[in-house]
């Protein structure tokens, strides 16, 4: 299983520990991630808000790079996923738009042909590797660990882009349970973390995060597991900010799914990776048992 690996900009720059765990677990599951060179920003929400055509052209340029490699493109970030998936869908379905974008891309020597599919890493685990193989790779299960899964909006919304209803959520729940943990239902699970409003309206962003954390806390869980790097920042660092500004403390560790699986596979996180979490996660990591 070979993929063009689109790391995006947030994860390599701000969350290298997330990327590291993905690169540690991938080879054990037979996944080969081929680095993409000379790509560009995926054109997330903020850029889409500025100009429609610029968005499509920038996102399409990345898709063309994957087409040149003859591979499907895999992302780690929900926002990259949404931008690339939506662009791929629009350009495959609408010839007029595709022609307009190709006129722009001709200037940089590229043409969108529609020959790549966009996947997020959890899709690769669920669909291509398969749940059974993921389960088999677990050597130290998190038996009984109560987890609140935070899928992040663009893993499963809008539904029409994600084929089966809520597949994104159920797939991630099943993956979490493959590590022996229990995915605990909670109210408004599909709700946003507030992250996209960071830098536009920090106060509202924090209130949205608080809403989410309140609901997670009342479900009685030990930690939050997500695949989205924005949700990670908003829910991890957000807890520090909420404590400072609203005097409310949650103490809920936040892990990426790749980190959870890596530890369950029997690989320890390194000291620098532990330190990347503002809410300490060491208490959670000791909750595994030998299989």
């Amino acid at each position, binding site marked *: 299983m070979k993929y063009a690996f689109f790391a995006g900009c947030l994860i390599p*720059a701000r969350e290298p520990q997330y990327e590291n765990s993905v690169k540690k677990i991938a080879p054990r599951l037979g996944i080969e991630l081929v680095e993409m060179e000379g790509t560009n*920003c995926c054109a997330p929400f903020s850029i889409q808000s500025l*100009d429609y055509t610029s968005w499509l052209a920038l996102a399409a340029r990345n898709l063309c790079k994957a087409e040149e490699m003859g591979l499907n493109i895999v992302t780690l970030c929900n926002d990259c996923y949404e931008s690339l998936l939506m662009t791929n869908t629009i350009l495959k379905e609408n010839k007029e738009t595709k022609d307009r974008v190709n006129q722009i891309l001709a200037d940089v020597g590229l043409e969108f042909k529609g020959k790549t599919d966009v996947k997020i890493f959890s899709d690769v685990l669920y669909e291509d590797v398969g749940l059974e193989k993921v389960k088999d790779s677990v050597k130290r299960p998190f038996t009984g660990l109560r987890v609140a899964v935070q899928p992040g909006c663009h893993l499963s919304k809008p539904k029409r882009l994600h084929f089966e209803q809520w597949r994104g959520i159920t797939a991630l729940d099943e993956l979490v349970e493959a590590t022996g943990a229990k995915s605990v239902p909670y109210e408004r699970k599909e709700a946003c973390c507030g992250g*996209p409003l960071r830098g*536009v309206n920090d106060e*509202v962003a924090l209130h949205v995060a608080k809403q989410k954390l309140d609901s997670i806390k009342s479900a009685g869980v030990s930690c939050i597991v997500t695949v989205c790097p924005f949700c990670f920042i908003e829910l991890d660092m957000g807890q520090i900010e909420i404590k400072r500004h609203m005097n409310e403390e949650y103490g809920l560790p936040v892990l990426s799914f790749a980190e959870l699986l890596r530890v369950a596979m029997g690989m320890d996180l390194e000291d620098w990776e532990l330190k990347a979490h503002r809410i300490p996660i060491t208490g959670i990591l000791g909750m595994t048992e030998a299989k």
Partner: protein
Amino acid sequence: MHEVANTPRGRGVLACIQCGRCTNSCPVSRVEKEHNPRKLMEMIILGLRSEVIGEQLPWYCLSCFTCLDRCPQGGDVGEVMFALRNLTVREGKIPEGILAQAQSLFDNGRVVTASRMASIQREKYGLGKEPTVDVEAVQKILVKTQFDKLINKGKRSL
């Protein structure tokens, strides 16, 4: 209304029946009463252009797409928000945080640039250098789509 409906992401406004499911499902509306997607749709339908285009309201939207899934009409409210922001930006109104991201995109080919700490960590822990970015190609594209002019217009209105 047709100015919005004629943009690539604005068509959904034509389907709106003002039921309010978008507002009821919106995570921002729960904490910020200023943000009311149903009311925004109403203002577009009524043609209250100056109260919608160029204003802050569409920038409260998280693009979480909950409203897209809840709208019984397939009205794509969250998509219409993109249309409103695109029109607002053409009048030079860009929130400072977004403008900084746009400038970073033009200068570096990416919105988030590497931090020194991450570069040191990557080097030290064997992750290798960050993936390369083709800034020249990004700038060629953005000049062709006149994105650079949008940034400059936004800066002048700050």
